[in-house]
């Protein structure tokens, strides 16, 4: 079984629990926060991945982190379960999959908007509205700026890309000219 399949299986089980407890977004936040905290701490990552350190010590470390982050009992138990199953290194993938499942459950689409020049608030709102109208789902936008686009906007929703940049249009024109 591939690592992605394992992560998806854990995430799916967790989202089912979260839906039942009506805590989908809470667990999403906690899982993402803990995963980020663990990844940012090289010392904690090294300690947890060291096979020479006893599992009790690792458990104490995780409990300390969980306590400091104020994580709910369900997520806390889930993290400790991963430790017991020696699959804690799947945590970041599980968090990513969980977010996808959570968004799907909540009817949310996450999109990235890249613009040649900074967009105004109204333009971002218009873009969000347009994308929500097109997809029929709530869209959460992540906005970025890339001057190499020269002009225009590029949006990416999952695997789908809507490219309205001058850079891409110039590339298409060059391709057409080369083909004659």
């Amino acid at each position, binding site marked *: 079984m591939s690592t992605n399949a394992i992560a998806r299986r854990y995430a799916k089980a967790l989202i089912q629990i979260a839906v039942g407890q009506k805590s989908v977004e809470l667990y999403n936040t906690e899982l993402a926060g803990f995963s980020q905290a663990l990844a940012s701490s090289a010392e904690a990552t090294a300690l947890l991945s060291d096979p020479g350190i006893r599992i009790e010590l690792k458990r104490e470390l995780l409990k300390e982190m969980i306590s400091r982050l104020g994580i709910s009992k369900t997520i806390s138990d889930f993290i400790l379960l991963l430790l017991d199953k020696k699959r804690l290194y799947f945590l970041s993938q599980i968090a990513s999959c969980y977010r996808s499942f959570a968004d799907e459950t909540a009817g949310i689409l996450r999109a990235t908007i890249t613009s040649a020049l900074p967009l105004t608030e109204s333009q971002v709102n218009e873009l969000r509205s347009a*994308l929500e109208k097109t997809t029929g789902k709530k869209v959460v936008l992540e906005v970025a700026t890339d001057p190499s686009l020269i002009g225009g906007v590029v949006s990416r929703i999952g695997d789908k890309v*809507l490219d309205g940049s001058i850079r891409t249009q110039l590339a298409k024109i060059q391709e057409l*000219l080369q083909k004659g």
Partner: protein
Amino acid sequence: MKSLHGKLPNRSNLLLLPAISFGLILFATTCLAAETVHHADSGAQLKDFLYRLFNFALLAGILLWAMKKANVKGRLAGRRAEVAKALREAEEIKEDAERKLAEYSEKLEKASSEIDEIYAAIKLDGEAEKNRIIAAANQAAERIRRQAQVSAQQEIQQASARLQAETARLAVQLARTTLEQSVTQNDQDRFVDEYISKVVEG
């Protein structure tokens, strides 16, 4: 062969010789006797004549005896037989030589004919080989010419494509440089509006 026959003495000739000699002697004796009558010489002359006659007869007898003793006749006959045998052998050799000559001539004629046929066949083969080589050379030349044409055409097409690509690249690069310097916030706002319209239209 006639000359050889002419050189050999005839049997009748051999008997004729002493007879003629004897006749000549009688004639001479008669003449001397007549002269004796006319002149009425003495008996001494007659006696001398008789002595001479006697000598001649003796000589002729010795001669005939010697000839018989020497078996001239037999020898001549043997010689003639040998010569005839030699003639027959020579004739046979001649005929054999003529037969061989004819045989060799025939063989030579046949060989010459075969040589002519072989020469004609070789010439024919050579002609066919020449035609085949020329045809093959023509085909090779045609193939090379076509390949050269195709290669030239491909080179032209590739050069044209490269030129077109380079032209397009330069044109787009020029356009990009111009746009990078000339796109304003208003243009960007217009691009965003157009983009939103396209997204809404789906």
